[in-house]
């Protein structure tokens, strides 16, 4: 029995069908991150878990108990809102202690709990201030403190870091991660930020238009996407998606990609069985930028490197890496090379393709073409 089970949950606002049957199950101590484009229903789902929005259809189980009709205050869930939602007329201590006060915790105990949390979040010196006198990062801590002080079964975070500047966001991200490791409480966390999702999550749920696209570990979602949407959504810079054709060579399927002058043939090592059926049909190849490198930085150990000489269209140094753009199948393709590689647009250079990381999609249904056995690794939220 999983700890939080979202069982075929629907949400309708009048005529608009916002959530169309979400199935997610996570274990105690999991850090579930919900990602997806704006308006896909992440906040709605979070609010439904918190009990702030009603459930139109389906079932919500927390620790084996159906909480569909349990009042928000009785769910033992604490939430950190995107806007922090600090009570403006109360001091920081009042804000943090309000939930305890409502639960009739005696003053002395309350004081101790507030002090403990303030110490944890390093806001002891702010306890007598009003929220209006705090900086963004300090408010964010107070908002977390208000949730932490209650020691709930489940934390909900709705884009808690989105109002912070880049530097502070990175710091707070680390703090949240440490906090989760220390407390081990189950967390459901909404974010728009790729890196936040990848670094924090033990499981990622990718949503689009009220439907779950994929649920899995960050690595699985990144390396083994269910469909074109997930492939394109996760990762920055995003996965290269290239038109190709599957043909048979020596009894094995290979992918043929048009380059500017000729045709590039890439051997297929993943999902080979499924792709046998795709002989002489068009597909879309997915290759992460880090799976296309210069030959020297390629990972030759597994022997799945395929090299080809291609023209350079553009060079984009980022400091840590050098992104080299070439044209494949009519679109620009990003390759990640060692910085300092002396390259200029118009030159030709050797690209090394790590074909073991290549994924293939059906251009019609946009689903991943994959062998059967992979599918069972992520049974919930499977769209294929």
């Amino acid at each position, binding site marked *: 029995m999983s700890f939080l089970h979202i069982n075929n949950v629907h949400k309708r606002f009048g005529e608009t069908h916002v959530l169309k049957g979400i199935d997610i199950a996570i274990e105690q101590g999991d850090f579930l991150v919900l990602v997806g484009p704006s308006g896909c229903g992440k906040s709605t789902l979070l609010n439904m878990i918190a009990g*702030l929005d009603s459930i139109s259809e389906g079932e919500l189980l927390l620790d084996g108990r159906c909480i569909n009709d349990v009042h928000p205050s009785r769910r033992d869930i604490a939430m950190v809102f995107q806007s922090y*939602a600090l009570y*403006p007329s109360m001091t920081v201590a009042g804000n943090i202690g*309000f939930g305890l006060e*409502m639960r009739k915790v005696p003053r002395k105990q309350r004081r101790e709990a507030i002090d403990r949390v303030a110490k944890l979040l390093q806001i002891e010196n702010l306890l007598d201030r009003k929220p209006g006198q705090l900086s963004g990062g300090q408010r964010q801590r107070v908002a977390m403190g208000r949730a932490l002080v209650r020691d709930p079964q489940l934390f909900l975070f709705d884009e808690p870091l989105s109002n912070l500047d880049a530097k502070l966001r990175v710091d707070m991200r680390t703090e949240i991660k440490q906090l989760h490791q220390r407390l081990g409480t189950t967390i459901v966390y909404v974010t728009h930020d790729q890196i936040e999702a990848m670094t924090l999550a033990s499981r990622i749920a990718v949503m689009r238009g009220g439907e779950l696209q994929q649920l899995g570990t960050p690595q699985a979602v990144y390396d083994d996407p269910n469909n074109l949407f997930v492939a394109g959504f996760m990762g920055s810079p995003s996965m290269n998606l290239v038109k190709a054709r599957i043909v048979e060579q020596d009894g094995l399927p290979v992918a043929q990609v048009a380059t500017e002058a000729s045709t590039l043939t890439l051997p297929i090592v993943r999902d080979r069985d499924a792709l046998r059926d795709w002989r002489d049909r068009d597909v879309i190849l997915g290759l992460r930028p880090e799976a296309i490198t210069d030959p020297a930085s390629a990972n030759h150990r597994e022997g799945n490197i395929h090299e080809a000489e291609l023209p350079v269209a553009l060079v984009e140094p980022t400091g840590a890496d050098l992104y080299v753009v070439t044209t494949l199948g009519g679109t620009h393709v990003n390759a990640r090379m060692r910085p300092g590689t002396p390259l200029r647009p118009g030159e030709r250079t050797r690209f090394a393709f790590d074909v073991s990381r290549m994924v293939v999609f059906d251009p019609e249904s946009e689903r991943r073409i994959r062998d059967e056995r992979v599918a069972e690794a992520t049974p919930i939220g499977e769209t294929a």
Partner: protein
Amino acid sequence: MSAASFTARRGLATRAVLYAILVLFAVVYLMPLYVMLTTSFKTLEEIHQGNMLALPGEWTLDPWREAWGSACIGLECNGVHGYFFNSIKIVVPAVLISGLLGAFNGYVLTKWKFRGHKIVFGLMLFSCFIPFQIILLPMARVLGILHLANSTGGLVLVHIVYGIGFTTLFFRNFYASFPDELVRAAQLDGAGFFTIFFRILLPASVPIIVVTIIWQFTNVWNDFLFGVSFASGDSAPITVALNNLVNSSTGVKAYNVNMAAAMVAAVPTLIVYILAGKYFLRGLMSGSVKG
């Protein structure tokens, strides 16, 4: 002459004209107050000598004493003080209750939206546009049925009912920009309907509370029509008493006493404005500018 000093001069000239106009308007507006105040400190003889704008030659407090304690209103000669306290007895509960109800309405209409909340608010808004005169007769009937005719209690009720439309409008617009997430957070914290209102929203409503108090206080205090229609005799408010004082003085008109009584009637609203005035504009603006 350099261009800079030219524009500086022109700026100075514009400013001078501007101030001249402002001073003129201020004088025009303050003139009646000046005349009232000076007259109320003059003896009747001095008034009869004719120079309205002159300062009192001999300052006297007698008109004020008379107005407060012994001027004849109708048949009784006890001054306006009883009516002054009538007005206080009307205005305090009327302002507090209509304000509180308006705040509640605003809270429910924005944070606990129910089916048809827009219609309810529309109707409330509509009540702001109903002229006083239209409701006189029906209200008289209602007060009669409730046995509240000719009492300060009845007048309190009338002002509450008439004021709710305005107070609701004020609070609704104020709470519309109050973040819903605060209410949701409080719900998760375990606060109920009333706790959320009294602990979260109300303490954050000072500007709009001030606006409401000023608005309701001046309207209720200065009301004459409801007062004269629904409360007569001993339970009349000061505005009605003032009217009766001025009209019932037989023989020589005691202008100084009348002016003193008028000042007595005007002082509470002045005080409210001076104490709360600086919040007034801030509050009126707070709906449009997020703050």
